């Protein structure tokens, strides 16, 4: 095995610039997925069966088809859907956001249902209406339970974001691939990309542990 990392040192800044692209897509998709996920989870626990049905159908479709397919549908389908082609990173944010909303809604739904029923009864008995009881009493406790699963979802999102390569977004993965093509040697740049992803995931993991510890203060 003859690895030659030397020749890739000049290309390193180019690859590293991809981190910004990756992080931007992941963070925006993460926010979109989280907000939409909360809304969908409320639909799922709603007493209006119709809303629950919509949310379940949504989850079913987004979990039942490959992410890369959703990405390509949104990117290549946009001219027919809305009349013009959206740019690749918008397509990436949209598809990742919509996709992870499906998973996050399940995580949050389970987290809300796991909070002791006595908590909502105690709030009700004090005359606190549903919405503030949910926001101030149930959700904060649910968040504590779901944080590990949520962090897991964001980690998955970070790694899976590498598939934006297929629609030409110049993220870490794509840049490594381009550099490999220039030098006719893919092994080393892709190893470098792997290391970058691994470090990003580790940072996320440490961050998650920190937040979790803070939230467990009242335990």
């Amino acid at each position, binding site marked *: 095995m003859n690895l030659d990392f030397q020749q890739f040192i000049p290309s390193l800044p180019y690859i590293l610039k991809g981190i910004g692209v990756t992080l931007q897509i992941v963070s925006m998709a993460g926010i979109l997925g989280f907000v939409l996920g909360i809304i969908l989870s409320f639909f799922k626990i709603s007493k209006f069966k119709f809303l629950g049905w919509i949310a379940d159908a949504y989850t079913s479709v987004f979990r039942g088809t490959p992410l890369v397919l959703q990405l390509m549908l949104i990117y290549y389908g946009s001219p027919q859907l809305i009349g013009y082609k959206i740019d690749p990173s918008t397509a990436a944010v949209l598809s990742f956001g919509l996709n992870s909303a499906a998973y996050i809604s399940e995580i949050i739904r389970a987290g809300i249902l796991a909070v002791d029923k006595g*908590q909502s*009864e105690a709030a*009700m008995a*004090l*005359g*606190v*209406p549903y919405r503030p009881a949910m926001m*101030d009493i149930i959700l904060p406790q649910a968040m*504590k339970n779901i944080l590990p699963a949520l962090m897991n979802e964001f980690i998955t999102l970070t790694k899976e974001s590498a598939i934006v390569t297929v629609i030409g977004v110049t993220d870490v993965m794509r840049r490594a691939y381009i550099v490999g093509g220039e030098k006719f040697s893919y092994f080393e740049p892709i190893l470098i990309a792997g290391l970058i992803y691994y470090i990003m995931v580790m940072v996320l993991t440490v961050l998650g542990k920190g937040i979790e510890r803070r939230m467990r203060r*009242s335990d």
Partner: protein
Amino acid sequence: MIKVENLHKHFGKLEVLKGISTNIQEGEVVAVIGPSGSGKSTFLRCINLLEMPTDGRIMINGQDITDKSTNIMKVRQNVGMVFQHFHLFPHKTALQNLTYAPMKVKGFSKSEAEKTGLELLEKVGLSAKAHEYPNRLSGGQKQRVAIARALAMQPEVMLFDEPTSALDPEMVKEVLDVMKDLAHTGMTMAIVTHEMGFAREVADRVLFLDGGVLVEDSSPEEFFSNPKSERARDFLQKML
């Protein structure tokens, strides 16, 4: 003050309350006693509509709370409840547990709510624990905070659903003492309990439920020394 007329409650096919009628006067302390599964908790939970009665009426201060047009939240603000398992909010300190609902629902300012909250904690002997989270409190302390939390809404009636059943024996007294003090202030109270000594000493009246039926409605002296029904005699024999 509370008038219960022909109260029925079904859970699916199961009929838990089979037509209960009684009155609770202002300032009266009523102990609700009976074997498990007799419907005494359900009876209590109907009074603040945590359970919706299937049939019958409940009037509080002349207002029919089972009427569809009644604002349930307003009713509950006026009827405090203490649970067997406390149900304190674990992510809030003792004081925050007391101030949350008055600020959120009654529109008290933070300083007002905290002032009342601290007074109430003082009353239940826990001012030192105001800034502790519930997990740092013993069972008895948790229940005293829960009582203070219900009182913070300045209710006219207090409901207690087996308030000492989940406590270690040595903590029962501190909670009962708080309840005794509360009874002496003239609070209207309905207490589901297995503490016969307490019922005998503090209650003005005893309601004995069995199988969803109000079997006896009498004074504690009469109930404990000379129960009218076979079922009550049987029950007391097993308890004492």
